[in-house]
């Protein structure tokens, strides 16, 4: 079929410094393995009794052994045996593991459980004990040791293969294939194998490193390769006996073992990471604010943002700006909605207002002020206290935004305990009252429970109750109901509205749902691609002028949408940002608007990648 194939990941990986280093190391290792014995075999075997047991010198960098043979040459020659034995053992582990894993997969359930339990038990024993056990059976020879090390690794790969196969077999695309009548063998060939093999190879590379070290250990103990043959472990064994005289005799082979082991381990890492590099962070604004922010007049805006720009480090180290000059003001007690699709920058803007962007974000603004506190620099201790008491946050997924290992009570009380120096008992009483006010049933019992013991709606109420523990001037709610059912959404928003009325806080509500925002907020701010497109009075939404706003309103069906006509479609953003947006029947060409979303999850509105 025609089409452009993406550049293979392997090539891209090789282009990184680490990938290139690993490739060069592998090439060198292969060359020494292939030609070492032929080129240096003589030097390694030539006895020179006059020069026996010498230390390191120019002629003999690693010194000489009991019979005056050059140790450097012997280390290089031993490469072949060491590497081949390690690869052989790895092959036994991988093939044996694959066989056990596959056989287990086709066995009846009871037998499969038995095999898995046995693999579990074997896995709980360290490889060295298994290898020692097997070497008793197969004898203290090179082949025996290879079998021993190989079989000791079988459980590892049996587990890996069955885990990988199970994870692929559970995917929707395998279900789809089954539904389409794909025969089991075809499914295995087309879907299972291509998705299981790459991770298997990655692990095999890493395991080769383990095999090499295991083998060295066995030979070192005298249970592997026997004289006159020699591998690195055996050379190390001989060198260690002379360690009081000449350390180089032991260090030489040791170096070879470590370097090769690290090389193979790195190979595994490079293959699995695909050479992904971590982005470099932008500079941080210097110095913490000093002193206390001036007292703020009650009618001054709670949030005052002018020309906010936020950039993040991209994969290649460059900075990508994702919020391009946003202005935003929130008055006291005002409920402002921030609406946009994924990549619109609404969450980033909110996190910048709260001063909670991670160290990889670079924030610049003409003004970024929360009640007199400049949020572009780290706050002073006094400002931290004020922020702790005057700002509260509610996030999309109430399960992951509550700490799974702390009780609900502890998470509610800690803010007042830390910032208002409330005593434990008083804070607890207050938490109880807060939970009751957001209508969490059996509040006293909930205080002692962990978050996973509550339902989704209840967890979000707990987050709202956190706001009732203090005297918030601003509640930032980032998609607070997106993970919830509509009926629960209504109840949670009711609790949020109640909390706002009670505390007199302003609310900044971030959502992708313009209807929801229009029904809850005093003012709606529409964002697209890091810019504010339009501000809207929800009671007069018909007056919306910007084509994107109008498109966003029209493209979502509601209970009155004309069913006989196709839905209007929002045009993907044109480069000049002036294209008409209402175009019934038009197609979605890019499926995604604005600048590149954060890597990994394009086109998904759930779980924003906001760094925290």
């Amino acid at each position: 079929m025609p089409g452009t194939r993406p550049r293979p990941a392997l090539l891209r990986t090789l282009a990184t410094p680490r990938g290139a280093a690993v490739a060069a190391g592998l090439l060198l290792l292969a060359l020494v393995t292939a030609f070492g014995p032929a080129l240096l075999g003589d030097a390694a075997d030539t006895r020179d009794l006059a020069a026996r047991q010498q230390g390191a010198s120019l002629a003999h960098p690693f010194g000489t052994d009991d019979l005056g043979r050059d140790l450097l040459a012997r280390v290089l020659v031993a490469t072949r045996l060491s590497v081949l034995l390690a690869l052989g053992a790895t092959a036994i582990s991988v093939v044996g593991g694959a066989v056990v894993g596959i056989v287990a997969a086709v066995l009846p359930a009871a037998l499969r459980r038995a095999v898995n339990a046995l693999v579990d038990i074997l896995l709980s024993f360290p490889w060295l004990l298994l290898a020692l056990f097997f070497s008793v059976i197969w004898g203290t020879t090179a082949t025996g040791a290879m079998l021993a090390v190989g079989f000791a690794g079988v459980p590892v790969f049996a587990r890996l293969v069955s885990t990988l196969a199970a994870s692929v077999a559970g995917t929707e695309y395998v279900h789809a294939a089954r539904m389409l009548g794909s025969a089991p063998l075809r499914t295995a060939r087309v879907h299972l194998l291509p998705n299981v093999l790459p991770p298997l190879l990655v692990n095999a590379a890493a395991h080769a490193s383990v095999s090499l070290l295991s083998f060295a250990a066995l030979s070192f103990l005298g249970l592997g390769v026997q004289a006159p043959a020699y591998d690195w472990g055996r050379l190390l064994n001989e060198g260690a006996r002379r360690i009081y005289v000449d350390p180089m005799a032991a260090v030489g082979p040791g170096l070879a073992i470590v370097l090769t082991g690290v090389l193979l381990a790195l190979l595994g890492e490079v293959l699995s990471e695909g050479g992904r590099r971590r982005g470099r962070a932008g500079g941080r604004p210097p110095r913490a604010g000093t002193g206390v922010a001036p007292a703020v007049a009650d009618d001054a805006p709670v949030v005052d943002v002018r020309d906010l720009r936020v950039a993040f480090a991209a994969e290649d180290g460059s900075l990508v700006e994702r919020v391009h000059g946003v202005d935003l003001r929130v008055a006291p007690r005002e409920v402002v909605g921030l609406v946009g699709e994924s990549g619109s920058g609404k969450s980033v803007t909110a996190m910048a207002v709260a001063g909670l962007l991670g160290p990889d974000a670079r924030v610049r603004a003409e003004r970024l002020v929360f009640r007199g506190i400049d949020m572009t620099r780290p706050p002073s201790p006094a400002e931290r206290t004020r922020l702790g008491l005057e700002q509260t946050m509610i996030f999309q997924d109430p399960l992951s935004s509550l700490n799974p290992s702390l009780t609900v009570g502890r998470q509610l009380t800690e803010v007042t305990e830390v910032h208002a120096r409330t005593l434990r008992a008083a804070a607890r009483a207050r938490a109880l009252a807060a939970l009751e006010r957001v209508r969490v049933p059996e509040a006293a019992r909930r205080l002692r429970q962990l978050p996973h013991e509550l339902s989704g709606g209840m967890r979000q109420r707990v987050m709202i109750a956190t706001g009732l523990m203090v005297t918030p001037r601003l509640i930032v709610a980032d998609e607070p109901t997106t993970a919830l059912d509509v009926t629960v959404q209504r109840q949670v928003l009711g609790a949020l509205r109640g909390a706002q009325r009670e505390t007199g806080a302003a609310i900044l509500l971030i959502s992708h749902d313009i209807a929801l925002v229009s029904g809850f907020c005093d003012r709606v701010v529409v964002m697209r691609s890091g810019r504010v497109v339009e501000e809207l009075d929800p009671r007069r939404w018909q007056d919306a002028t910007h084509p994107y706003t109008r498109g966003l309103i029209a493209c979502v069906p509601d209970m009155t949408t004309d069913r006989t006509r196709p839905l209007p479609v929002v045009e993907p953003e044109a480069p000049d940002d002036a294209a008409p947006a209402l175009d019934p029947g038009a197609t979605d060409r890019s499926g995604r608007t604005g600048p590149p979303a954060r890597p990994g999850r394009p086109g998904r509105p759930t779980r924003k990648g906001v760094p925290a």
Partner: protein
Amino acid sequence: MSELELRGVTVRYGHGARAQTAVDAVDLTVRPGTTHGLVGESGSGKSTLARAAVGLVRPTAGQVFLGRVDVTGPSRYARRTRRRVQMVFQDPMSALDPRLPVGLSVAEGLLATGRRTSRADREARVTALLDRVQIDPRRAGDLPGAFSGGQRQRITIARALAAEPEVLVADEITSALDVSVQGVVLNLIRDLQADLALTVLFISHNLAVVRYVSDDVSVMRAGRVVEHGPAERVLADPADPYTRELLRSIPVMGQPLVLADA
């Protein structure tokens, strides 16, 4: 055109004290050539019911009929007939094999027709199908990762169409998409339904979306259908309190949310 009928379908997971009934004796009929909307919240059993309809889940009790043919059992005939019911999944990311070019994924759908086809025929068919869902056929060799969420969902729809289904089951196919992309996919489903005279079971938690595409509606809760009937009638004059609660909870553009209890 075929009718899809679920008769007394029950799906139970687990054994003994831990057993949970996901779907509880559900009767549901999708009239030939119409779209039947199935609404419910998380845990209502609507996705399990969809999986039972296409044979990915074996019902504990009850039968699934396609045009009066029982397609529930493991018999060869049932399995073959069942392939005329196809499903589009919720998450377009995991519904496509990340290492298989999308053209081959679509071609996989041709398996279900049971016909032996030449390579040229297959490619022509894939080109036509991708074109039908407005994906550039020249990109058939690209991997799924090169496409946006909305595009991927249209590719999975093309794969389902390749099977030449009589019934299409769409399980929350827009809930992982941005709202502006949702409209495109909904329009596509409506067009296809009309052009190919498909029988569609459309599952969603979003009442407004279901209303827009459906002729009939069933409302599910805790494994049971609490209300069903023509979409206009059910949504204009719901009989069940749960349906009323659902309706009341939907945000409407420009109207303050009803946050107080009724």
